[in-house]
């Protein structure tokens, strides 16, 4: 029991990190119905962006987030217009191959630009801690969880309280009806893809000081994000948050309380996903659209 408070804190902070990496994928699928296999690479590019801004310009990764969000939004918009819009009506396999292809191109571009060397941003707060009795809280992880909360809140406010956000939800719910109401679905898809890219890049800025940065870091992140989104319910932001927290609590519990537990976390996490999907095929929150 002595480890319990630390277990709860670690689970919550890990959950925050998971929300951060999964929220973009969830929103993207909710609106466009395309699973973006390049989402991990957007996180990778955000991490490199934050790393280089810190290394070359001395800009803290957290302060770099607004700048990276703008860059990610523009890049996402352009990428959508150049590639994704051409497969919107295509079979799902074509969409998967396209986004996989984008991921491969971005990966290899990163290798060419920055080599495969492992890097990590090291602002002081990445290893600084607060101590509450025997409980240690890493500031960097608290910041990551805080950014996750802010981003999810911002996305929810955008979707629920703005005209554009309501248009996004309308297109997600019924594209034909939305078109009849005068909404341009292509513009909404482009906007959503740009926002999703910006979310991925913002997540990258945060993970830049929490995990290692390499051109190949995107794929494991994508896998984890897909697992969380599927667990929570495809396209549901609330489900994604719940799924991230469930997975984080289960994995951390296994690490703390099972002998040699850290070796089992991944396996048990995925076993949980299988179990939940067998019992409730639509995921924890069921299928809903973008909120």
């Amino acid at each position, binding site marked *: 029991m*002595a*480890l319990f408070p*630390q*277990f709860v804190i*670690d689970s919550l902070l*890990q959950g925050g*990190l998971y929300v951060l990496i999964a929220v973009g994928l969830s929103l993207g699928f909710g609106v466009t119905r395309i699973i973006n296999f390049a989402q991990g690479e957007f996180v990778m590019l955000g991490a490199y962006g934050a790393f280089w801004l810190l290394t070359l310009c001395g800009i803290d990764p957290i302060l770099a987030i607004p700048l990276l969000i703008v860059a990610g939004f523009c890049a996402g918009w352009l990428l959508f217009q150049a590639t994704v819009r051409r497969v919107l009506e295509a079979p799902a396999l074509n969409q998967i191959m396209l986004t*996989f292809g984008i*991921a*491969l191109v971005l*990966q290899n571009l990163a*290798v060419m630009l920055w*080599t*495969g*060397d*492992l*890097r*990590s941003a*090291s602002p002081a707060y*990445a*290893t*600084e*801690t607060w*101590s509450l009795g025997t409980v*240690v809280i*890493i500031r*960097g992880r608290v910041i990551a969880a805080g950014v996750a909360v802010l981003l999810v809140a911002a996305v929810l406010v955008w979707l629920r309280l703005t005209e554009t956000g309501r248009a996004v939800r309308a297109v997600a719910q019924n594209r034909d009806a939305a078109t009849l109401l005068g909404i341009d679905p292509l513009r909404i898809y482009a906007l959503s893809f740009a926002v999703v890219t910006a979310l991925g890049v913002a997540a990258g800025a945060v*993970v830049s000081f*929490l*995990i*290692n940065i*390499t*051109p*190949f870091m995107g*794929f*494991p992140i994508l896998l984890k994000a897909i697992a969380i989104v599927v667990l929570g319910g495809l396209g549901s932001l609330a489900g994604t948050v719940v799924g991230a927290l469930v997975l984080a609590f289960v994995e*951390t519990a296994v*690490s*703390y309380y099972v002998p*040699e*537990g*850290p*070796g089992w*976390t*991944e396996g048990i996490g995925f076993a949980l996903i299988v179990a939940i999907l067998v019992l409730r095929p639509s995921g924890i929150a069921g299928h809903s659209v973008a909120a």
Partner: protein
Amino acid sequence: MSIRILAGRCGVALAALAASLLPGAAAQAEDVFRIGGIAELSGKYVAYGSQVKRGIETAIAVWKSVRGDKVAGRPIEVVIRDVQSNNSLAVSVMNQLIQSDKATVIIGPGGSDVGAAVVPAWKKTEERPVWLVPGVSSTVVEKNIGKDEYFFHTFSWTYDYHETNVDMLKRALGPDHTVAIIYADDAYGRAHLDYARKYLKEAGFKIVDEELVRAGANDFMPTLVKLRAMHPQIVYTLMQTDDAVLIAKQIRAAKLDPQYLIGTAQAILPEWRSAVGDIQECWTGVATWLPGLGYPADKTEPKLFPASATWETDWRQRNQREAEFMDAGAYVSTMLALLAVEKANSTDRDKIEKALAEGDYMTPLGESKFVPSELAVHQAFSKMVVFQLQKGADGFKSVLLYPADIAQGKLQSCPTE
């Protein structure tokens, strides 16, 4: 299967097909001395693979500047293939180097996992070429290679790491200390665990905890929190560079505050040092080579194997960077292969094997004499050094601690918060 692996395999298959369609490819193979390099030029072992590539290319450049473009009257060709740190792709590449490229000698890879993966592909080929490996410490490879006479290991095996590390600790501290071992659940961590435990116990250290971490994980806090309760004086880590970055950061964050932080190879790698920043302080590392060992030049081949200080300067000029341990290993391995071919005056593998086995040079990596290891036939450069990253007035520097006759300083305890 990921698309990256699929794409890699398709690439290898297409390249193999193209090579087989080229007329006269096999015939040409007999007229040249072809070095096949297996290197991890991308993926998690890129730090090793890029050193293997640099080492081979620099050795060829030095050879050509000293001896001309040929060896034993034959043009020299180099084919270095990227295995992307991917085991299954590495197997395809090994088959390709043997069957399509007709490599006379194979050099590489660097990482233990990749090395272990390609052994069966190499061994199953009856006419397998001579293979020099300037990396790969896993004894799984040594076990699987067995008494094969065409295999030359130019790097230390796992047990050399821990025999050296523990002897240094025993001499510096005495055995009356508590140790906690953290090991990764991959081939590297598990291969090292048994030897670390064996030598620590034999030396009289008290192992108070052994904790497993998942390779590639982003959160080691549960492990470290449990470990903190044991108050170990020495934390002994067994993991590859990527995990070693995060464990170093999280050991600091978890306020573990051990007196000594012991690592294996990570502390010598610039990318590890750069990624962990200031918290590299007091970590020790063990390596086959690092700058400043001060070996003399070889008496018979002073231009190919100059004094290690001269070689380091020359390397810096050629590559615009400091040499690293596997740079030196791949350079020396390539040069030994070239000298063996010249001595044998043939590309026949038995003659090359004999010439390699008989060769004895003083290289920038130390003496090159091949002797049997515990299980394999040809082993050189198993002697290791231990160093510690200590903070000086002008930043961090590697201070040699062991062996005593070339030590530059003493083991220092880690600063506490």
